[in-house]
């Protein structure tokens, strides 16, 4: 099979999996041992393997997201990094120091829990002060740093409240302040926005990014929300059944999914047959018309089965004449002519093969074993 052009793929020599698309070049810039390094991490619960032989490097100061469906191992990996679980195999190092056997209270890592885990018997200020208090920091310094942390999350006026008297979004902010006051090397966030409504979630996404830039510590963020992952991350890893399917910056993962799973989990996508094999085509790259297929373009004809108006775009699902289903999206421009397409309309879908990205299925990756690819293949 012809290998795709223009791809820089790094395949782990031992496992044969694609570790990163850009890692080889980035490694030249960032010295290893500065961030978090996971080597061959395996964790079993009973007979179930929650995390299977995962290698991962997270760079210092990076906003790194672990994305995947529930049960894909992302939260387990986070708990392993925090020290709540001990791996059955493999090592975890933080800035070059092996922390695999250390308990949570001896790691320079703090966690923002999914249920916030605020202490209900303490007020906001004492919750935030907790980490400093147990480390016997001086009273005056604690007060000062609590004040600063509450300011950062804009919760100063709520210092005397109990957690039960706060809204979900406010608890979220307190949990964040309680973690960052300790100036951890890495901040772990376990689906921190999961319990918030959409509007608040979007606000907090912006807020989290701002705080991360401001304090410059590494964030490892777990979510099953692909949109959240794409908007917030510097890089993200897509998890499936305890393994990493792909690691890369959001644009790369979205535009050039390495596997069919990634293509379907991150955004909507169509898989088409290209001359070189199977390829991924994003809905917005497909033109939908009711005329004939233009000269020199690839395409197919079919019948609209579903129209969904999504605000900025309208999404059409089309049953092709060959029986397959494809999804196309069309920008809703205010001035432009609107196509009056309703279910059962006959349409022509067309696309440019250059917009499609060749798919490397999992089995393809396995056959590349021992062939670390450098540069254009």
């Amino acid at each position, binding site marked *: 099979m012809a290998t795709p052009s223009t791809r820089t793929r790094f395949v782990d020599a031992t496992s044969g999996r694609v570790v990163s698309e850009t890692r080889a070049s980035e490694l030249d810039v960032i010295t290893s041992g500065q961030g978090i390094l996971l080597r061959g991490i395996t964790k079993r619960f009973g007979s179930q393997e929650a995390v299977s032989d995962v290698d991962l490097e997270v760079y210092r100061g990076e906003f790194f997201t672990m994305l995947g469906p529930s049960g894909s191992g992302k939260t387990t990996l986070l708990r392993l990094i*925090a*020290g*709540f679980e001990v791996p059955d195999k493999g090592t975890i190092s933080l800035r070059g120091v092996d922390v695999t056997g250390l*308990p*949570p*209270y001896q790691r320079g*890592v*703090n*966690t923002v*829990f*999914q*249920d*916030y*885990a*605020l*202490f*209900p*018997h303490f007020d906001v200020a004492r919750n935030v002060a*907790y*980490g400093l208090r*147990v*480390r016997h920091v001086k009273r005056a310094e604690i007060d000062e740093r609590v004040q600063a942390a509450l300011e950062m999350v804009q919760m100063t006026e709520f210092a005397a409240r109990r*957690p*039960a008297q706060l809204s*979900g979004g406010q*608890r979220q902010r307190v949990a964040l302040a*309680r*973690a960052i006051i*300790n100036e951890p090397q890495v901040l772990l966030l376990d689906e921190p926005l999961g*319990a918030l409504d959409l509007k608040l979630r979007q606000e907090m996404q912006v807020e989290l990014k701002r705080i991360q830039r401001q304090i410059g510590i590494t964030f490892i963020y777990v979510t099953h929300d692909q949109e959240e992952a794409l908007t917030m991350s510097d890089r993200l890893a897509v998890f499936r059944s305890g393994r990493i399917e792909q690691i890369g910056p959001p644009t790369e993962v979205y535009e050039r999914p390495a596997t069919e799973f990634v293509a379907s989990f991150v955004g909507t996508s169509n898989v088409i047959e290209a001359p070189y094999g199977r390829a991924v085509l994003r809905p917005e790259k497909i033109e939908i018309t009711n005329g004939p297929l233009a000269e020199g373009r690839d395409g197919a004809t079919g019948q609209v089965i579903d129209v969904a108006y999504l605000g900025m775009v309208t999404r059409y699902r089309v049953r092709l004449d060959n029986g397959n289903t494809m999804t196309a999206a069309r920008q809703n421009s205010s001035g432009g002519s609107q196509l009056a397409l309703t279910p059962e309309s006959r349409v022509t879908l067309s696309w440019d093969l250059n917009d499609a990205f060749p798919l490397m299925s999992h089995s393809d990756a396995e056959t590349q074993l021992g062939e670390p690819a450098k540069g254009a293949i």
Partner: protein
Amino acid sequence: MRLSRLTRGGFAVFAALVVTFVLAPLLVIVLFAFDKSNVQSLPIRHWTTHWFAVAFNDPAVRSALWLSVKAGCAATLIALVLGTLVAFGIHRFRFFGRDTVSLLLVLPIALPGIVTGLALQSAFNITHIQLSIYTIIVGHATFCMVVVFNNVVARLRRTSTSLIEASSDLGARPWQTFRLVTVPMLSTAIIAGGLLAFALSFDEVIVTTFTAGAQNTLPLWIFGAILRGQQLPEVNAVVVFVLILTAVPIAYAARISSGERSFGSTGSK
């Protein structure tokens, strides 16, 4: 659930009947305690607090009361320590026979008191242990422990484990986590358990009969007095006193364990 007016009315009447049936006898005792007459009959013609004075000045009642208080306090203290520790052990660790152990623990309450009492007496007999206040304490501790255990284990089950993890994550050593998070989390459950345990011990008759020997606790004195059929007005006064002394801690225990919502879940959702 929506019920018709008639159904709701029916339930209300039924509930009122049940409550009356349970509480009316108590009310009768309280009334008779203030009856001047030696022969109890309704309606009460002459009211008096005389019998309370008689009971208060009766040395037999005094020593029985004192024994009950001492035994109750000691049994409660033992129950608090052992019950809390066992609750931790059962909740925190998975070990072989865990379910069996938790069943065996609640057995003293599940078994008829007469079985527990007889078993204890036989055990003291063959080991040649003299029946004394200590044997009463041991007997009471067996079932008091269950109450404390049940309260604490229920609280532990309702408590989100992420609080403990959060504490550890924030740098607290296990001892600090225990002191700053675990104990405050369990405090009301432990207090409620202790109050219930004391109330149970204070009015226990059956197990005490087998473990007290020649001494009288307050309930044993009451029991004896009723059997003899004399001093009945004085008994009524003592019963009212016992009623108050046990109802207050029970009411307080119910308040502190229901007044707060389940610990730890207030932080989520």
